[in-house]
């Protein structure tokens, strides 16, 4: 084709198809850069922050917390103490080699605890976790003593994945405040050690249709 005819015949297609087409293709660029917005902002925020001054509010110091013996990604963190929650600690007040005379001993003895932990056929026994030599402590598989406050070491023997998640923050719950020193619930704050699975229950409320 001659050059002038080529220019004449291509004028309208270029004006009404190609140039708008290019505009349409480039209009999706803002959508692509959206990913760069939030994700890159989070990735670039690598500077360690002071736990105390992220918000302008005073976080009260919590009582009955103990420092965990492993560190999380931010250093030391705390969990709730367990011994204060057990009514009749110390256990060795009764569980010693002497004979004891206690009022209502039959009622306060805990021979009636059902252990629903582990397989139905091969459930855990009392002495799997409780030390026979010293009732004030728990005992790990190798025989090392574990304090009640550091019960996560006990549970973490089998539930090591949950323990790793708990240290990081994906398992468990933080207590009341998201800012300030990190205080998290202990294993036994939520799970009954003798029957740890959450029970079925009715929902607290119901929802009506939105539309």
């Amino acid at each position: 084709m001659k050059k002038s005819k080529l220019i004449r015949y291509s004028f309208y297609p270029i004006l009404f198809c190609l140039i708008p087409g290019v505009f349409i293709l480039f209009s999706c660029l803002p959508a692509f850069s959206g990913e760069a917005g939030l994700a890159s902002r989070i990735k670039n925020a690598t500077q360690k922050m002071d736990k105390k001054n992220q918000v302008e509010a005073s976080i009260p110091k919590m009582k009955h917390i103990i420092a965990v013996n492993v560190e999380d990604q931010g250093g030391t963190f705390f969990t709730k103490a367990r011994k204060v929650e057990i009514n009749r600690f110390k256990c060795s007040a009764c569980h010693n080699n002497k004979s004891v005379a206690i009022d209502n001993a039959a009622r306060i003895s805990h021979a009636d605890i059902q252990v629903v932990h582990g397989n139905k056929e091969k459930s855990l026994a009392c002495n799997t976790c409780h030390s026979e030599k010293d009732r004030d402590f728990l005992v790990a598989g190798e025989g090392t003593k574990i304090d009640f406050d550091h019960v996560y070491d006990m549970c973490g023997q089998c539930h090591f994945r949950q323990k790793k998640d708990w240290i990081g923050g994906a398992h468990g719950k933080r207590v009341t405040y998201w800012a300030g020193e990190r205080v998290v619930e202990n294993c036994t704050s939520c799970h009954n050690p003798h029957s740890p699975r959450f029970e079925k229950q009715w929902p607290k409320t119901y929802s009506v249709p939105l539309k």
Partner: protein
Amino acid sequence: MAQNIFRSVKIDKEDLMDSDKPKKINRRAFIKGAASTAIAGGAAVTAGCKGKGLLGSSEAFALEFQEYFKTHYRLMTQIEREKTVSRLERIARLKQDMDIKIDTTGPSEKVLYGYAFNVTRCEGYMECVQACVKENNLDRKSNTQYIRIFEMEHGQMSPDQGDGKYFHMVPKEGHFYMGVQCFQCDNPPCVKACPTKATWKEPDGIVVVDYDWCIGCRYCMAACPYWGRRFNWNQPQIPREEITRKQHYLGNRQRVRGMVEKCTFCIQRTRKGKLTACAEACPTGARVFGNLLDPDSEIRFVLENKKVYRLKEDLGTEPKFWYFID
């Protein structure tokens, strides 16, 4: 020629009876009369209303009158904000006999709020829903809930396919539970849709609504792809003893009929360092809340170590609410 026409149609005055004569009144006299009647009538009505106490005490009336003329929250100076807060607190004291504390804490520079939801751990108890309703002074009559929990069968991905109206013992076999609320998008379509700019994204990531600037057109509700917003079709009714007294101007202060509201990540709590009501209420610890800009935070651990996903990622709204599995 014109003169002739007029003369031919001229009515003879003597033929008319006295009652048929058109009564002529001067325009000036008419307006004077109408204005004086209106003023006298208005004064009588106002005096009558005030006397009966229908407008409340005159102090409450004066405060509400001043409140009507306030400007947009973002354009207010700090002094104007304090003034409006004290007016609102005083009105609540006078009209409802209640002591409330309205907060205007601003965003913190180092904070960008993020939320993660553990789909494996949610058992459908709906304790979060109940806590949210109590904390944010939601209308009990229409059962407004910011959070929706959906019961989904294994394999389903989208809440559209789930059941949001379940009410039976939970968890049901073969199902998992997933919670949906306003995701505080980083590229919020609701903010773009608002014709009066009554909703905006705060620097710490929370998308807020100035309730007194909202005209109730519900364009934002149409724009939101996640059904995050709620509208007050009726005047909110909350039992007096359940009203949360610690409020934030952009958060859980009392709304009236005709306003759009939504989850604000409990702005009255989170700006003071507390967890959101839903995260605190969850008994299984399925909700993780924190500061996305803090590299040591739990939300960052979840994003870096867990399999996370967001809903409707293809729309480009950049929600700050991730779902993850154990």
